[in-house]
């Protein structure tokens, strides 16, 4: 049986290789495609995308935006009118038309209108994403500038308030001190006794009678002596002095009485003054008390403002302008288009080669004149199917090997057991699908059409054209079991995220289930052989 299988595979391969076009396709197609794709997509940029731009009046901002787009390798053309710009998209001259408002300025209208052709929806999102980056960074710069102005003002206010707060505190303290001083003064004034009282002073000079009696006593003593005359003269002098002292004392008394009157008068004046001051100071004290309340209130407010300002932790304008910054990073370190395309590319290859190759082999064999000789040979047609399967698998693997070999020039270490298993399972699945198509088709053309239709359908309901997330839930739930999606998803995880095989176990089981179902269908189609097998 093994020899028969080998004979069938050899025959199939020879037939495939003898056809020049087939051989060329098998060897050169993958080489050519991968080289072209490698050269074209081994970057993460968008090249040569044409953008039409129009504005009635360009401002610094709009010019800056245009420059940003040019810096991002877009081919930007300024048009003469918005109509030309929009029609340019319709006519395919531009991929996107950007219409900037007249005099684009932060103080005026800032809406930039993009006109896109939604029939190129995949390109549209790609371009808009790229343009948005430029616009948002420009917008971010503008916001940052505006926030900077606000922040500067805020900082100034904070500094001024901090400065003022000292004065206010000092003022409050001084006010309190004044209030206290005033209170003391008032107390002093209140406790100040202006009463002087009437003169209670006495003139306690020895009376002249005492002095005369003393002198008389002295004269009597002296009469007995020779010094009486001199004492008499002294007595005269004393009398003279006595008279003068009396006069002076009288004068002094009258002066004192005069002074006392003046003092009384002054005391009265002082009392009036103090009363006046008391009233004034009471007013001042009340005023100071009111001021203290006001100052306290101002102080509280100032403190609140300062607390509020100091509680603002974000002081960087960039962070206030863009408190949440988006950074879209590739989850894999490999970021070129080729990298992200490679899983889909491989499954695409496997799908088209598998389906087309196997369906073509089956229908070509069915329509071959030599087929009858195979039919009447003592060989189970399931063995023929196995031979066709291994032939198709061999061709598919050769092509994948070429792709891997060429791709390894661009990036290393992409091959693993998981990748091999996924490729083998996907190849087997699509080859068996091709067999089913080949068996039910009546002609090679029909099989080719059916194969292309099935492959296109698989492609359509995958992430290649539109994200499957955009489909209705019910359809999405079916589409996620699309063999192409299963294969691509598995390979993507293996190639881009370097996950282990058990991480994609569900997909592997789904692929194996599909394979089993297809084998059963082929058995049913070959039911005669099934009978033979169990006989």
């Amino acid at each position: 049986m093994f020899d028969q299988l080998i004979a069938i595979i050899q025959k199939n391969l020879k037939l495939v290789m003898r056809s020049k076009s087939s051989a060329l396709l098998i060897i050169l197609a993958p080489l050519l495609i991968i080289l072209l794709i490698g050269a074209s997509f081994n970057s993460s940029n968008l090249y040569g995308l044409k953008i039409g731009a129009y504005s009635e009046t360009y401002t610094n901002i709009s010019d800056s935006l245009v420059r940003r787009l040019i810096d991002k390798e877009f081919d930007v053309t300024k048009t003469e009118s918005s109509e030309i710009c929009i029609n340019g998209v319709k006519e395919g001259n531009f991929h996107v038309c950007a219409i900037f408002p007249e005099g684009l300025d932060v103080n005026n209208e800032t809406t930039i209108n993009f006109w896109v052709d939604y029939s190129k929806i995949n390109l549209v999102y790609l371009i808009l994403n790229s343009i948005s980056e430029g616009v948002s960074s420009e917008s971010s710069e503008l916001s940052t500038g505006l926030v900077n102005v606000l922040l500067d003002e805020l900082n100034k206010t904070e500094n001024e308030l901090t400065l003022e707060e000292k004065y206010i505190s000092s003022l409050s303290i001084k006010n309190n001190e004044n209030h206290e001083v005033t209170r003391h003064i008032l107390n002093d004034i209140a406790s100040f006794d202006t009463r002087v009282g009437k003169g209670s002073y006495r003139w306690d000079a020895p009376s002249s009678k005492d002095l005369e009696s003393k002198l008389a006593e002295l004269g009597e003593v002296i009469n007995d002596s020779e010094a009486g005359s001199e004492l008499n003269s002294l007595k005269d002098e004393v009398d003279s002095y006595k008279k003068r002292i009396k006069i002076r004392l009288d004068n002094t008394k009258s002066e004192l009485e005069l002074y006392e009157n003046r003092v009384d008068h002054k005391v009265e004046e002082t009392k009036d003054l103090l009363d006046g001051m008391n009233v004034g100071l009471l007013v001042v004290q009340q005023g100071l008390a009111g001021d203290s309340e006001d100052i306290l209130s101002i102080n509280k407010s100032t403190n609140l403002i300062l607390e509020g300002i100091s509680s603002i932790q974000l002081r960087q304008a960039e962070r206030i302008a863009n408190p949440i910054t988006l950074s879209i990073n590739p989850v894999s370190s490999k970021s070129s288009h080729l990298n992200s395309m490679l899983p889909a590319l491989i499954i695409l290859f496997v799908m088209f080669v598998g389906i087309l190759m196997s369906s073509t082999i089956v229908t070509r064999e069915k329509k071959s004149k030599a087929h009858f000789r195979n039919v009447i040979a003592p060989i189970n047609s399931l063995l023929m199917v196995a031979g066709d399967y291994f032939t198709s698998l061999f061709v598919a693997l050769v092509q994948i090997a070429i792709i891997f070999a060429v791709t390894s020039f661009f990036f290393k270490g992409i091959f693993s057991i998981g990748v091999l298993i996924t490729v083998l399972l996907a190849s087997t699945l699509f080859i068996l699908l091709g067999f089913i198509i080949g068996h039910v088709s009546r002609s090679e053309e029909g099989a080719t059409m059916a194969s292309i239709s099935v492959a296109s359908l698989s492609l359509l309901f995958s992430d290649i054209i539109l994200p499957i997330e955009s489909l209705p839930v019910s359809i999405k739930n079916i589409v996620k079991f699309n063999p192409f999606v299963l294969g691509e998803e598995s390979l993507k995880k293996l190639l881009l995220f370097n996950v282990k095989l058990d991480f994609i176990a569900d997909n592997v089981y789904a692929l194996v289930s599909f394979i089993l179902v297809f084998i059963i269908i082929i058995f049913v189609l070959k039911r005669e052989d099934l009978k033979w097998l169990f006989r």
Partner: protein
Amino acid sequence: MIKLINVSKRFGENVILDNINLHIKQGKILGIIGINGSGKTTLLNLLVGHHKPDNGSVLVKSREVKNIYNVAHFFGFATQDGCFYPKLTVKENLQYFAGLYNLKKHDVDKNFENVSRLLNLYEKRDVLAEKLSAGMQRRLDVACSVIHDPQIILLDEPTANLDPILRKEMSNLIRLLSSQGKTIVLTSHLIEELEGTCHDVAILHNGKIQKRSMRTIRKSRSSLENVFKKFVKA
């Protein structure tokens, strides 16, 4: 060697074979003659088990033909069309078809050597089948039928679309194979061709068959043509 016992076959409403009985002896050349659409090819297909009879049974070496697999080794079948791969060489075609019969490598090589030399294909062994002349292609077709050394060779219209020289060549080839002890069943609608080649002939018409020995026909100084006309009229 081969026995058809009360065999009937119909396709839809058309009765192709109606309760026929036929015995084909070993080592003989049996020619089946009939007009186009008389069921000659269907009869051959029944012999190899490609078609199943609706009624009756086909026995090959006393073994009932139930399907292709239990009798395939006995038969070599050359159809009206060239049953070979045009994109393979003579040798590749022969080796491939020999391989289907599970022959060992040295048997395949030996059979290839014998058959290609017998049918004068050896010199052309590395030529693509599509590059061969019509006569050589017919030889290749026969060679593909006999590469596994079958005991019974079925030839469906072997001389159709051949010029007289090639027809003669094919007749010689059939006799050559017969001389090697093969039982040959061939169909044709050319009476004179069968007269010169076959030991026995079977006339197939309207689902009925009548087998006659060529020796008997010759002895009765009649001709196959007369026998055929008489059977058709009857």
